């Protein structure tokens, strides 16, 4: 029998051990930076969510659930009773709905685009992909401002509508929920297109011609064949739009006009205006929880996909 069959195991010699040691040392700076720069801070956020707010910001080291309670209940100052309040829940709900709406909107626009690009000849295809990605490289702030610039009352869009005679006075588009949704789609649309494009591109379109002999209708083919095929891309793209939209700050801040708060604004407010750090931390923790759930769904879907293809 061979030496391995006789039980001999691989041995890592001195040269390789030295190399492994060097590599571990090289890895240290990055891990330390991110460990101390992100993981530890997030831990601090979680801890702070269980403390009491200080008078001028900061925290008092006194463990309590009050931040989380404050999320759902309002404490009457006089008789110390708790009444259920929905203000914050509404914000979370609005954020959730906005993120869902943005995801659906991005899908309605992005899926046809992804399909179209995937069916272009190879030379133009790379150009299209490039064109779709370029806007994402631009600063998010600039992109959000430019959207505001266009849709505000004194902006070019209203000017165009008035000039064309469609309306007589400016249409209030900016500072509405609709504007926020629009800005979210604008920000993250490329992220919906690219994964779907990647999934559809792999499709052998000759199968489609074969399917035509069985199914008469191109819409049936879309529903029965193409959509299921693109599903992993659709799920990936949806997550890539949903998660950033949920925690978005700039879109609701600049286009929401301060009245249509989303989670991002609410959290920011606790650290700037209201100075209730534990409450802000709690809100952040809850947001993290939602994101984690969304990610776990994604990972489970990926694993199921991998099992299916094996």
């Amino acid at each position: 029998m061979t030496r391995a069959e006789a039980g001999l195991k691989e041995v890592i010699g001195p040269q390789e051990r030295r190399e492994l040691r060097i590599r571990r040392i090289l890895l240290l700076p990055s891990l330390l930076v991110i460990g101390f720069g992100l993981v530890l801070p997030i831990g601090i956020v979680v801890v702070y969510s269980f403390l009491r707010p200080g008078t001028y910001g900061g925290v008092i080291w006194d463990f309590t659930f009050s931040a989380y309670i404050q999320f759902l209940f309002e404490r009457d100052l006089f008789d110390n009773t708790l009444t259920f309040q929905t203000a914050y829940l509404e914000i979370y709900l609005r954020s959730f709905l906005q993120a869902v709406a943005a995801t659906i909107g991005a899908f309605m626009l992005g899926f046809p685009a992804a399909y179209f690009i995937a069916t272009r000849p190879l030379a133009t295809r790379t150009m299209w992909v490039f064109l779709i990605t370029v806007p994402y490289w631009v600063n998010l702030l600039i992109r959000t401002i430019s959207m505001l610039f266009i849709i505000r009352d004194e902006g070019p869009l209203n000017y165009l509508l008035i000039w064309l005679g469609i309306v007589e006075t400016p249409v209030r588009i900016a500072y509405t929920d609709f504007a926020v949704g629009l800005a979210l789609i604008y920000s993250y649309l490329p992220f919906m297109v690219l994964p779907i494009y990647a999934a559809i591109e792999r499709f052998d379109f000759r199968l489609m011609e074969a399917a035509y002999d069985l199914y008469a209708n191109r819409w049936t083919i879309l529903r029965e064949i193409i959509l299921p095929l693109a599903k992993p891309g659709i799920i990936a793209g949806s997550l890539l739009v949903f998660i950033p939209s949920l925690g978005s700050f700039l879109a609701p801040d600049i286009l929401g006009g301060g009245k249509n708060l989303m989670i991002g604004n609410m959290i920011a407010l606790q650290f700037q205006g209201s100075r209730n750090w534990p409450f802000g931390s709690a809100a952040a923790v809850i947001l993290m929880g939602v994101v984690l759930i969304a990610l776990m769904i994604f990972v489970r879907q990926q694993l199921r996909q991998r099992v299916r293809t094996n």
Partner: protein
Amino acid sequence: MARRTRGEELRRYPGFRALTFACMFFLYAPMVVIAVYSFNAIRSITVWGGFSVSWYLKAFSNPAIQKAAMNSLIVASTAATVATVFATCGALALARGRPLRGQEAAFGLINLPLMVPEIISAVASLLFFVAVGIPLGLGSIMLAHIVFCIPFAYLPISARLEGIEAYYEEAARDLYADRWKAFRYVLMPLLMPGVISGFILAFIISLDDFIITNFVAGPGATTLPLAIYGMVRTGFTPEINAISTLMLLISVSFVSLSYLIGRRQKGF
């Protein structure tokens, strides 16, 4: 229009082409519009007063803008440099050779900043600085930027590194070079396009950042995005258009540069 083949005909869906163009229009129009208006000599939406760069000049003679731009450059160059060095070390550790114990966890950690929503990173960084006692100012911005610049620098570097075969270093060591000399004379020159590409990407990401910067900036430490944000709050001016257009062009050209340099063939 040329006649479509049967294959092309079957793959067509009515309206998809139109929607794609609508997509493109939607994505590009706002930025193009801002760019166009930034060159309008007259401060008006409705009237075109002729081509002029006066708003650009006006914006950059503004001392507040100048200071913000300088701060942005200082922060971006420092953060990108440090992040690139750390990311290069990290890539050298992870992207070659026998997998280390905990390899995937390390890789996940390096990419963690990309996964966490920015608002959470922003809050976390702020609380960290306060808890540890680091004063908020340009320095705190730099520290926070280094954290999220590392994964951005890491990507092109590790991509490049994975494309460099092991036999180059082996040949160098075979020819009496110790590990350091093999790295310095053979691996590093071959890796350089990836490192530069990573640096440029990290630089632009730092330059463009708003949310995290907003949270950890101290009084007086303004960066360009922060300045723009402050200006927009008080209403649109053509100077805002000018600066926005400029940042827009810088972003696009830098990212393209990063991509092109990273793709250079080994042949040099």
